[in-house]
C-alpha cells in the first residue's frame, strides 16, 4: 500500500510522517511519533483510552485515520505537564486517587481537559455525563469524578 505524507502539529511541534491510509491516528501518534501516553484499549471506540484533542475537539483517536490529521492541531497527555509541574487536573488525580493502574488515565485527563476548556463551569451532572464516555476497570469512577471536580476548580483558578 502506498503511503501518504501527513503533517500536523503535535503538542505544539510540527511533525511530518508518511503513513499507510489504514493506520489509525492513535497508532500514528504512538508508533510513528513515539508518544505512547495515548493508550489503545478496545480500538473500536468503546473505552476512551485513546481520547485526545484535535482542533479543540475531544475525540477518539482510534476512530480517525492518521491521514485525516493533515493540518490539524493535536494535543495528547504529554502536553499537560510543563516539565515537573503537573497540570491542575493531573494534580487533582494524584490527590484524589483518580487512578490505580493508570491505563485509562491519559484518556480521562484529555477528556476532562478538552471538555472543561470548552465549558469551564460544567456542573456535576454534565461531568457525570461526559465521564460516562470512558471506561476504568480499577477506580469505580467516584474518585475520578472527585478529581475532575477539584481539577475544574483549580483550572478556574479557585483554591
Amino acid at each position: 500500500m502506498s503511503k501518504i505524507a501527513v503533517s500536523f502539529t503535535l503538542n505544539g511541534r510540527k511533525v511530518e510522517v508518511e503513513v499507510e491510509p489504514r493506520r489509525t491516528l492513535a497508532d500514528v501518534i504512538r508508533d510513528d511519533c513515539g508518544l505512547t501516553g495515548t493508550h489503545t484499549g478496545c480500538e473500536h471506540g468503546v473505552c476512551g483510552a485513546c481520547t485526545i484533542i484535535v482542533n479543540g475537539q475531544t475525540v477518539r483517536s482510534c476512530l480517525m485515520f492518521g491521514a485525516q490529521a493533515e493540518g490539524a492541531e493535536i494535543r495528547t497527555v504529554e502536553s499537560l505537564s510543563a516539565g515537573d509541574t503537573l497540570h491542575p487536573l493531573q494534580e487533582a488525580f494524584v490527590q484524589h486517587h483518580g487512578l490505580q493502574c493508570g491505563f485509562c488515565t491519559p484518556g480521562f485527563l484529555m477528556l476532562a481537559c478538552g471538555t472543561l476548556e470548552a465549558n469551564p463551569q460544567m456542573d456535576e451532572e454534565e461531568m457525570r455525563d461526559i465521564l460516562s464516555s470512558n471506561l476504568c476497570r480499577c477506580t469505580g469512577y467516584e474518585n475520578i469524578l472527585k478529581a475532575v471536580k477539584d481539577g475544574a476548580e483549580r483550572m478556574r483558578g479557585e483554591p
Partner: protein
Amino acid sequence: MKPAPFTLHRPSDVAEAAQLLTRFADDEVRILAGGQSLVPMMAFRLARPGHLIDINGLGELAQITQSDGAIEIGALVRHNDIASAEIEGATGALLKKVMPNIAHHPIRARGTICGSLAHADPSSEWCLSAATLDAVLLARSATGKREIAARDWFTGAMSTSLQADELLTGVRLPVLPEGTRFGFQEFSRRKGDFAICAALVVFEIHYGVIEEARIGIGGAEDHPRRIAEGEAVLKGQRPSAELFARAGAAVAAALDPMEDHSTKAAYRRDLACDLVEGALQEAAR
C-alpha cells in the same frame, strides 16, 4: 483490530465524490464521514472496503439551511453541532432533546447525522427522528439527484435504498410549528449505549384536542417507523393519562419486535408501551 488496507480518496467537491463512487463501484467503495461506525466495523474487519472516499474536506456539506418551511442538514453536520445550531420552530428543540442520547460526547464530536441515516442501525436516534418526522433524504450520483422519503429509505437492519453509486448529501426535515408538543424516551442499560427501544412522539393541540399526532418507534423492529395504530388512538382526543396508556398499548400490539439472546420480543413490546406512554406525558406537560 487493525483495518485492512484500502486506498484513500479526498475529493475536493461533491461532484468529484460522486464520480469516485461510480469509478470504484465494483471494489466495495465507501464514504467516510465521521467514521464512528465505519472505522469500528473496519477494525473488526466486518467491512473491508477497497476504497474510502473521505468527505470531511467538503465544507459545502457542513451547512444547515432553512427555507420554505424546511430544514436541510448537510452530510457533514455532526451530532454535537445540533447543540449550538439555530434551528427554526419546534424542530430545533426536538433535535436538541434527542441528540444527547446518542453515544458519548467525543463520538458526537465526529459522527454525522447523515452517517447515522446511511448506517441505519435499528436503534439510531436520528433514524427514528427521520422516520417520525417523514424526513426526505437527498441523494446524489454522478448522473443526477434523487429525493427519498424516509418510509422508503429503510429496507432492513443497516440497509437502505441508497444505491452503491449514490452519496447522501443531506436530509430535509419539516419545520414543526411553534407550540408543537414532543416527547422522547429511550431505554438502554448504560448511558450512551444503543437503545433497546426508543419512542418519539409529536402532536399539536388545537381547541383542546390532539391533532397531527406522530408516534415513532426505534430499536424494536429492524428499522424505525411510525405506528399508525397508536396515532389513531390519539386523533381528535383530549390528552389524558388514560388516553396515553391506551396509545402505548395500541403501539405495543402493532409491533413485531426483534429478538436476540439478551432481549425477548415481549420485553421490547412492554418497553415500547411504557416509553410511548412516558413520551406522551412528557409532550403534554
